[in-house]
């Protein structure tokens, strides 16, 4: 093996591709060759690096230096100064822009521990980082029930929104005697403001595949389907490559590691409908139907795809499983409070200094997440509110920022962890406008199957539009709450049960803004 002095990781994300990262890479290689450095400096493509500059971002190891927004014109200086003379180019440094306010928290990561560090298109790098050890351990030394017991003990709860205990979910499906069982991975990720699953899949596709294999072994499934939204082209491409490599290495396919366990993983692409993220609607979509949700029970764990027992789990949920099996439930329980163990990946956006993602222990306060991991507010502007959990989330004011982000603590605030989206708004943001945008989303995404949601979302949109225009009355505010409460009680699925969350939190915390807009 060659010995390289430094490794340059180029983050290949959609934003980077758009900024011409491919041409950049070629130009960088040429420049290194010109200076005869091609055998000393290694260039690697990796997933998104976890921070969002505008465009091309680089990390250089072992120095651990981040560059952001690098252009082709900068290459000559970069090579000359950094790679030849060992002096990092100050003006391109990421830290410089944010005065060192950034915490990448790598040491504490579970789900994203490899993202931005390994080449996601090379299975050997995943294996080199301890990948597939958990699968080997499970298949050779553990019974399926042991795997379930370990996941149960870890306290892992679903990261797709509802927080259902994962081990418990698996334990419903495992004992069922069926000729075919399925694992379905929910990678539909439609909650506005959420892109964590995309970054997990782009940055480390094998961690998902290993988790799927563990889940399949645990419940006795031999087929798995990843249902992924059509817009995630890079994820789809990377997952396809990863599956092909794993099959080639005998890690997926027939008789894995010489055992009787076989598994085939397939990728299915969605066609653009938020409701298809709801697990039974997703199953309908997989079968080639309109994505209308099904009645529960029977739950998918008993009757899912083609009426066969099916475990549906979110991408992030499953990406935790390799860690739990490899290091044991106790190691997982070291992270977060007892009833919400582990870490959580958040996507931070809006008027925040560093939009991007972070993975922190459950129970970390929202204030810490925003200030320490998001770099605080953009320079010179003040915080007003955060919309936490996406459209089906809640508006939180400053005085609620010290809430600990875990399933139990949020319940006390009548809030939910949801998908982990944190949208930060500045002091000039119009909350009425923002709620209007949220309700427009629901109106568009209601699937139309049940009347409370179909009619309710339209009515809510009409009411908020009237208020936004300054034509609303006190009675309209009351009616909004009444309609949303009625929808919460009577809608067929959680989509129609959700609008009450943003409405109630907006009115509870920012009522004066609504009242000021009324036509008195």
């Amino acid at each position, binding site marked *: 093996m060659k010995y390289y002095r430094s490794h340059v990781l180029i983050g290949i994300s*959609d*934003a980077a*591709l*758009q900024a011409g990262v491919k041409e950049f890479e070629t130009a960088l290689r040429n420049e290194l060759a010109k200076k005869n450095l091609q055998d000393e400096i290694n260039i690697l493509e990796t997933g998104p690096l976890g921070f*969002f500059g*505008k465009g091309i971002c680089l990390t250089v190891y072992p120095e651990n230096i981040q560059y952001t927004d690098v252009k082709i014109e900068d290459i000559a200086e970069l090579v000359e100064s950094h790679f030849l003379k060992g002096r990092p180019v100050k003006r391109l440094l990421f830290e410089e822009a944010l005065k060192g306010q950034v915490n990448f928290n790598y040491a504490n990561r579970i789900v994203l521990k490899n993202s931005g560090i390994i080449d996601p298109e090379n299975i050997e790098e995943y294996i080199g980082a301890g990948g597939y050890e958990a699968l080997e351990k499970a298949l050779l030394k553990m019974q399926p029930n042991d795997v379930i017991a370990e996941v149960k003990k870890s306290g892992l709860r679903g990261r797709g929104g509802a927080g259902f205990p994962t081990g418990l979910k698996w334990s419903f499906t495992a004992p069922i005697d069926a000729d075919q069982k399925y694992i379905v991975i929910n990678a539909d*990720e*439609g*909650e*506005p*403001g*959420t*892109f964590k699953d*995309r970054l997990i899949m782009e940055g480390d596709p094998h961690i998902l595949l290993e988790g799927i294999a563990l889940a399949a072994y645990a419940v006795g499934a031999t087929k798995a389907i990843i249902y992924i*939204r*059509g*817009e*995630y*082209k890079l994820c789809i491409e990377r997952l396809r490559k990863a599956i092909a490599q794993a099959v080639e290495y005998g890690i997926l396919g027939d008789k894995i590691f010489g055992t009787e366990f076989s598994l085939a993983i397939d990728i*299915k*692409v*969605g*066609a*653009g*409908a*938020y409701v298809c993220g709801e697990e039974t609607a997703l199953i309908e*979509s*997989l*079968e*080639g*139907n*309109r*994505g209308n949700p099904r009645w529960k029970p029977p739950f998918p764990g008993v009757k899912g795809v083609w009426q066969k027992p099916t475990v549906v789990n979110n991408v992030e949920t499953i990406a935790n499983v390799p860690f739990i099996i490899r290091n044991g439930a106790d190691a997982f329980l070291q992270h977060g409070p007892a009833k919400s163990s582990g870490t959580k990946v958040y*996507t*931070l*956006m*809006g*008027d925040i200094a560093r*939009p*991007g*993602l972070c993975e922190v222990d459950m129970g970390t306060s929202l204030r810490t997440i925003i200030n320490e991991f998001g770099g605080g507010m953009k320079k010179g502007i003040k915080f007003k509110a955060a*919309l936490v959990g996406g*459209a089906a989330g809640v508006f939180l004011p400053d005085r609620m920022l010290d809430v600990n982000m875990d399933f139990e603590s949020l319940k006390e605030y009548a809030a939910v962890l949801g998908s982990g*989206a944190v*949208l930060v*708004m500045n002091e000039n*943001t119009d909350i009425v*406008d*923002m709620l209007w*945008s*949220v309700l*427009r*989303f629901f109106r*568009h*995404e209601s*699937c139309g199957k049940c009347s409370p949601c179909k009619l309710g979302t339209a009515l809510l949109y009409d009411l908020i539009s009237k208020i936004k225009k300054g034509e609303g009355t006190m009675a309209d505010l009351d009616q909004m709450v009444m309609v949303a409460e009625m929808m919460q009680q009577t809608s067929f699925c959680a989509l129609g049960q959700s609008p009450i969350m943003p409405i109630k939190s907006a009115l509870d915390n920012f009522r004066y803004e609504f009242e000021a807009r009324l036509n008195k």
Partner: protein
Amino acid sequence: MYEKIFAKYEPTKDNLIYILHDIQDEHPQHYLSEDAVQRVSEYLNVPVNHIYGVITFYTMYSTKPRGNNIIRLCESPPCYLKGSDNIYKKLKTVLGVKAGETTADGLFTLEFCACLGVCGNAPVMMINDDVYGNLTEESVVTIIEKIRGGK
């Protein structure tokens, strides 16, 4: 074209969504014609009304001819916060069409869409398979001009 696409998929109903995707992508006007629906119905042995039910459910399908370039501007809250409505106004003037319409030269169709999962770079739009982020009123003009020039 149909034969080539059908050859990739077993004639089972669960392949409907993918077959429709492929046909629509192949068509220069990115839509599903009556003829296409008829052919798919025969191949899969699925009634035409089921197929229309599916097409009208998912936002990525269209039964109307569209432009060569489909612009999908995200209107979800994070992009809205970052000024997607100003981007929409700009696009309307540059293209001379509203959302849901196609330019007279058949080059562009303007549409709204929900969150594309690229909110770190809001406001965002997609043109066919490409994502464009951190949009400004200036940058959208450049992007459109570039496509116009390169047709």
